[in-house]
């Protein structure tokens, strides 16, 4: 029965066989970091501040359609096409968790909770999620899990001045707000970079080990 369970799990793992899932996730993280940076470092009446949201959404759409285009041209001709089932409950759970996280952040900020705990907890949760989704199938990716966990701890213990400097000129005048902004910005940069590295390696390995079969029809 375990083997049947493994077979049922294979199509989900196939989505990232080429590393594009990680590359897309990495670019989204960096896109969000850019969005935050524009918000924090440009005055509210500047053009960059005003277009930051549209820039974020535009880049996110570009990633979505770019991934689709790369899969159509590279992945499907090499290892085949899969049409996934639309699972609305997965999106609903993700949205609920996101809303819960945002609410927790807002409450924590209002009550002046200890912010260094935030990157450690989110980082460890992110490392666990990465391990579950990507590293289970590919052993070398446990190195990335370790790197994400260590990076989260490093961010948590960075001096408050450094974090405040990253979030300086923030529209949130409160120093804790600037610190929180700095933490989120740095975390997005670190996680995005790691996803890009691991996705890039996966993509390179995929291209190296697969080839388009002779086209004699199927």
């Amino acid at each position, binding site marked *: 029965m375990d083997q049947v369970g493994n077979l049922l799990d294979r199509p989900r793992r196939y989505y990232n066989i080429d590393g594009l899932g990680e590359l897309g996730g990495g670019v989204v993280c960096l896109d969000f970091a850019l969005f935050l940076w524009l918000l924090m470092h440009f005055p509210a009446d500047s053009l960059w501040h005003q277009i930051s949201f549209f820039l974020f959404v535009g880049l996110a759409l570009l990633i979505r359609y770019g991934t689709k285009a790369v899969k159509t041209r590279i992945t*499907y001709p090499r290892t*085949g*096409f*899969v049409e*996934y089932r639309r699972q609305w409950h997965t999106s609903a759970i993700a949205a609920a968790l996101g809303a819960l996280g945002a609410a927790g952040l807002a409450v924590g900020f209002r009550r002046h909770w200890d912010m260094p705990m935030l990157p450690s907890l989110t980082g460890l949760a992110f490392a666990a999620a990465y391990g579950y989704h990507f590293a289970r199938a590919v052993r070398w990716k446990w190195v990335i899990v370790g790197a994400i966990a260590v990076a989260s701890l490093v961010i948590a213990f960075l001096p408050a001045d450094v974090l405040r400097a990253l979030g300086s000129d923030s529209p949130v005048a409160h120093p804790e707000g600037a610190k929180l902004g700095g933490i989120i910005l740095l975390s997005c940069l670190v996680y995005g970079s790691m996803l890009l590295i691991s996705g890039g390696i996966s993509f390179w390995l995929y291209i190296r080990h697969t080839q388009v079969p002779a086209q004699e029809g*199927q």
Partner: protein
Amino acid sequence: MNQQIRTIADLDRVIHEPGRLMIVALLFAVDGADFLYLQHETGMNKGTLSSHLSRLEEAGYVAVTKTYRGKVPQTLLRLTGAGRKAFEQYRRNLKEAL
């Protein structure tokens, strides 16, 4: 015959064959997939995979659609409603038997 042996005897023989079980399990998890994907995941050659797919199509478990991706012929495969039900029943029976 006791209950457990009867359950084993009731296993769907079309699905129970290892090659076809792989195909049905892979298709069960998705909406559809092409021939190349099944070949890649199962490691079967074209002839063997085709013969298993024909058997599953005869049983009404798999729907085959011939189409083109650009100029390249593509064979899309989906599990039918009957195929999904049969696989769920097969898993239940197998659990009971074990």
